[in-house]
């Protein structure tokens, strides 16, 4: 698996770097050779500055172990949510959720305000 990953990474990165490098040289040639070519520099500089910032952030994240256990944060987030909802003053099911057997139907105009209108959900859900 690791070998496939390396092959794919090299297969994608090398042509990309080659393409980017040649286009960058083309850009410098345009900038030097044509007095009006200078106007292309502002969007390119914008892109390079923004990307450089994110490259630094990416390296920082790698060095600080942000990708060491890459799947753990999704479990931590759910556990925190569950704990907060357990202690919250509302029932976790509050909101637009129907009973599990609910079928789509044409909605009616007007009120449907039976105070127990969502009771079936809670009863169903136990």
């Amino acid at each position, binding site marked *: 698996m690791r070998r496939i990953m390396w092959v794919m990474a090299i297969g994608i990165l090398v042509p990309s770097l080659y393409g980017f490098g040649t286009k960058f040289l083309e850009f410098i040639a345009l900038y030097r050779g044509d007095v009006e070519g200078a106007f292309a520099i502002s*969007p390119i500089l914008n892109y390079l500055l923004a*990307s450089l910032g994110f490259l630094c952030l990416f390296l920082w994240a790698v060095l600080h172990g942000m990708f060491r256990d890459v799947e753990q944060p999704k479990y931590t987030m*759910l556990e925190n949510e569950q704990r*907060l909802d357990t202690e919250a003053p509302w029932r976790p099911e509050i909101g637009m959720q129907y009973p599990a057997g609910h079928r789509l139907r044409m909605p009616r105009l007007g*009120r449907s305000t039976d105070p127990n209108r*969502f*009771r079936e959900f809670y009863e169903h859900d136990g």
Partner: protein
Amino acid sequence: MIDTQAVPPDAARHEDLVDDPIVVAYFLAALCFLFVSMLAGLLMALQLVSWNPLQGIELLSPGRWRMVHTNAVAYGFLANAFLGALHWAIPRLTMRPVLDRRLSWFIFVAWQVVVGCTALGIVVGPTLQAMSPAWEQLPFSFGAQGVEWGETPTWIDPLALAGLLLVGINFMAPISRAKGPLYVASWYFMAAFVWTFLTYAMGNFLPQYWLTGTSAGAVGGLFIHDLVGLFVTPLGWGLMYYFVPIMLRKPIWSHGLSLVGFWGLAFFYPLNGIHHFLYTPIPMFLQRGAIIATIAVEMVVFTVIVNFFGTIWGSGRQLITNLPIRWFYTGMVLYGLTCLQCALQTTLTFQAVIHFSDWVVGHAHLVMFGVFSLWLLGIMTYLFPRLWRTEWYSRDLCEWHFWLSAVGVFVMFADLTLAGLFQGYYWGSLRPWDVSVDGSVPFWMVRVFAGLAMFAGQLCFAYNLYRTWKAARLGPAPSAAKPAPVPQAS
């Protein structure tokens, strides 16, 4: 202000973390601006079929309404709704409150002033300035700035930028204090705070004070697209990564894949904007670079969509039984559609036909309403019962809201896409301009009715919200509150 040191993150409760009233305030402000924006859009649609009810009133002329329409939806509806949702999501995600609740309220008031002044500047700015010779001598205009999507008058720009900086500081505090590897939503939020500030500065200041001609045009293109891709998109996806797993009660399918999506967006997106100006004097290598970057982004987008559909796999019935989930996944399907459309329409072949046509208008509505507005309205559908501790007044009105909005925007998108193709071929065949206008009128008629359906959906939502609020004032509904704990026999 909550003393974050006094409440250990592990023991924090919802009340310690989230300031519910500010979430409500942001959502209500967002809905007010949504109505203003939709009303303005409706007037523009009526103008195109020669039914403008405000004909002859200079201050309410279609050119001004159009700018109110776009600015109210971007800075009034989307920004307010995002800020409201972030005030809920970030503290719960990081288990730490925002830096300062008073700062949150200050930003809320300041942002409404910024958006309100923008609308006023667009509608009455030039007229007001002409009333006094002293005002006419001022080195800046009270009216709209000549930058697409950046029509915010120049004198408001520094205030708006300061507001964005404060938003970043207020929200970065809890994210930076979070322990351990970050969840992908936090990455998206962090990036959005940096990108939005930089994008706003680039688009509103560079073309105004430093750049001219084609160079300013190229930066304008970056600004238009980065506003969607680096402000709206990361906040939208960040919120989806937060809300979808907690509603489905299962983790995202692959957190690793979600990080690929985030970093792909970070590196491929910033150069996309030039694709707004294909066939212009901008050098071809920049135009082609933008096309390739756009197609690369579509691959990144594909990883994100696969991840979300992998998450709901096995829980497909939730699309029927869980209305917020239905809002979210409808938006995701439309997002896939809009990105597919994007990959095609940025090619030079497609551009030769659709440039300047209604195709682009259909695409913009699909992105702004069909994706991000649907997500935000879904978040509101989920959160208002929690914020007010009561169930919705009418679930049927919630259903009407969903179906009128979703069907309305899809009809509008399909209609304008077709209109754009017809217009492109009319122009390409070099027939008189009038022929293309006459051929467009039936499509514009359909657009009026699609817009009316979307507007009717929001009216259903507003009425339902009002009745729910009235019910909430009487106290929590029995079905919404938790049952009292049963005392344990000792």
